[in-house]
């Protein structure tokens, strides 16, 4: 405590001394300088005085900015330009052709007036800011409040969370009424609310609940569709397109109803949107990996063949359906060799099924694949 008081007293005493020195020393020097200058003027003659007066405006500015320049290396550069444009404005205006528009006359005066003040003020602040962040808030607090709104906002939302948690229990009621109004079959209504209620209750108790997972995959009928497709391979020949789709609809609807507790009529038709370019590229790359031209004749390497094939729902090509549709650029023998190479590629890389979206089966159940060796000939 004693040390603190001593420091405080010492600091106040020093501050007082310094303040006194500043106040006391401020007045004497200025009058001294003025007096000195006045004494010199009194000695000079009128003619000389006139001559000095004519030169005075030039000397005065040189004396004043001189001390300012050494203070900071950067400021003088910035402070220098401001006067420069104002004084050099006429020579800069010389390239008038560049600014024949009305902007030219306005730009000169505006810059002369606006530039000097901000630059002189900014120059000293910038060096202070990096040195100590504490100083920065003091001086430019009012000028740079940009980052501050964030913490203030963060403090305000704090009270908001409580209401959110309070609304949570209230939200339990809406799910039930949302399911109730649905005009679904009675059997499904019973199942739906039970699972929904159970899920909600278990969510509070245990983080992982079975119904949760069943709900998510329910939105994508793809996985069950594949399983159904594999089982129903035998039905394909008899029922070309709709047959394999029907069982998939039933299964997915049941799964969705059981999971969501609501009748979610999924699109029954297997036809989906056309393949994306990425999906087409995926198929192209898959076949390219097995398209071996190494054993082809030079003539077959100049032959372009188009091969048709049917594809099972599991992505495997129907081998018996693979056939040559057309060929260009070679003899029949060469076309046959090129066809065989393409056929091998399809069968080999399609053995495990091409990675195609099951929901778009209608789009790729039949494929025409053209094998063009043009680029490969140069390799």
């Amino acid at each position, binding site marked *: 405590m004693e040390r603190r008081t001593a420091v405080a007293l010492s600091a106040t005493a020093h501050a007082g001394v310094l303040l006194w020195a500043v106040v006391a020393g401020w007045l004497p020097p200025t009058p001294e300088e003025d007096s000195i200058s006045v004494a010199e003027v009194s000695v000079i003659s009128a003619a000389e005085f006139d001559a000095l007066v004519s030169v005075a405006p030039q000397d005065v500015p040189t004396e004043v900015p001189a001390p300012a320049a050494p203070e900071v290396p950067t400021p003088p550069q910035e402070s220098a330009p401001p006067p420069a444009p104002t004084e050099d404005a006429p020579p800069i205006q010389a390239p008038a052709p560049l600014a024949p528009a009305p902007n030219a006359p306005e730009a000169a005066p505006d810059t002369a007036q606006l530039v000097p003040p901000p630059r002189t003020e900014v120059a000293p602040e910038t060096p202070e800011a990096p040195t100590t962040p504490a100083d920065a808030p003091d001086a430019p607090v009012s000028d740079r409040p940009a980052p501050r709104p964030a913490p203030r906002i963060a403090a305000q939302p704090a009270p908001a969370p409580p209401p959110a948690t309070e609304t949570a229990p209230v939200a339990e009621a809406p799910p039930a009424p949302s399911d109730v109004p649905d005009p679904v079959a009675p059997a499904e209504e019973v199942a739906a609310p039970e699972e929904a209620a159970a899920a909600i209750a278990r969510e509070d108790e245990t983080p992982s609940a079975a119904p949760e997972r069943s709900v998510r995959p329910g939105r994508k009928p793809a996985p069950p569709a594949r399983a159904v497709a594999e089982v129903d391979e035998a039905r394909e020949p008899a029922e070309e397109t709709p047959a394999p789709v029907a069982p998939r609809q039933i299964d997915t609807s049941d799964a969705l109803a059981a999971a969501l507790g609501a009748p979610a009529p999924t699109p029954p038709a297997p036809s989906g*949107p*056309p*393949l*994306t*370019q*990425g999906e*087409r590229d995926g*198929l*192209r790359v898959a*076949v*390219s*990996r*097995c*398209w*071996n*031209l*190494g*054993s*082809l*004749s*030079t*003539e*077959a390497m100049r032959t372009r063949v188009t091969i*048709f094939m049917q594809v099972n729902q599991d992505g495997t090509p129907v*081998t018996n359906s693979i056939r040559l549709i057309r060929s260009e650029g070679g003899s029949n*023998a*060469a076309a*046959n*060799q090129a066809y*065989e190479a*393409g*056929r*091998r*590629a399809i*069968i*080999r890389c399609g*053995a495990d099924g091409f990675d195609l979206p099951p929901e778009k089966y209608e*789009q*790729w159940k*039949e*494929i*025409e*694949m*053209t*094998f*063009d*060796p*043009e*680029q*490969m000939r140069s*390799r």
Partner: protein
Amino acid sequence: MRQFLTAIWIAAVAALGLAAPSAAQDGPLRITITDGVIEPLPFAVPTFVARNAAAQDIAQDITRVIAADLSNTGLFREIPQDAHIARVSSFDSTVQWSDWKAINAQALITGSVLVEGDGRIVVQFRLFDVFSEAQLGDGLQFVGTSDGWRRMAHKVADAAYSRITGEGPYFDSRVVFVSETGPKNARQKRLAIMDYDGANVQYLTSSDSIVLAPRFSPDGRRIIYTGYESGFPRVTVLDVATLQRRTLGDLNTNMSFAPRFSPDGSRAVYSAEVAGNTDLYLLDLNTGASTRLTSAPSIETAPSFSPDGSRIVFESDRSGAPQLYIMSAGGGEGNRISFGEGRYGTPVWSPRGDQIAFTKQNAGRFHIGVMRIDGSEERLLTGAFLDEGPTWAPNGRVVMFTRESPGAQGAPALYTVDVTGRNLQRAATPAAASDPNWGPLLD
């Protein structure tokens, strides 16, 4: 900033286009494949089934030759027998597709060998496309003598090769060449003939005189070459079966060389120096009548007929440096077809008629190259200290040539290269060899 925003916009549009469904399709999905792989096709050839005890060894030998023929093309890769899962105990047994697929055998060759009581050999074979689970072509059967078992193996390999690649066969063929022995400054040269794979080498001439540039007749029964029996280079014809020789041409010349048969075998075109000028001549082998084809003050040599016999490609230095020209078989000025840098020589017309192989010397290196008959699409297949004298395989897919190594110990050797420039291989010869000429397919 504007550029940055523009780039973001373009990227977003591109990403949207990639993810967006393609235009609605009408009919089947249409995909174009432009990229593939160029790899040797893996095949399996289990040892041919020996149908009797006498066929045990020869079945093994035939199987090995078949595998070597296909593998040496660079277009096929044999799957070692110890990797085979399925065992073929009978020629007519059912193919276990899954076992062959498991080892990625895309082609399967099965066969059997029977040695009959009179010593004749019966070889049967079948070729299968494993992943298609189907037989490629019909099964074939060859019958021959025991000393011709290699030819039967070549026949089987030829059939498999042609069915898979679509190229013509060439394994069952022979090559005539100049066998060289002795030091480099005193080489002894003899004409020799061998199977395309270096087996069954036979010498046709002694080393008493120099022999150069032997060429098979279209039927493979005669060889025409430049012999020095008289002390001067003269065109000579040799009967392969009887080894009887006959010097051709009764021209009052000092030298005749670089002969080659016409496609029908009734004529021969060659170079002859008359009064200090070298031109091309056509000799009727039946009548002995000779016709002068060129009459330029320059040197015309190395003529080669087109397969249809209507044109001749040759080498001439009429432009100041050796270049290639094509003229009618009846003679004439000819049209220059080579315009690249360097010197071109020894042109040989492809059996298919669409390309010309040649020797090119440029920037201190020799190359074997091919170009279309109009001089376009020139491609250099090799490059070395000294490569020269190309000759085509009967199917026009492979080129054989002479490569000589540098230095005092350097010696010529025969090499083959695929017309694509891949699969450069040295041909097996018992000694140094040069000037190869690939004969026709054997009957």
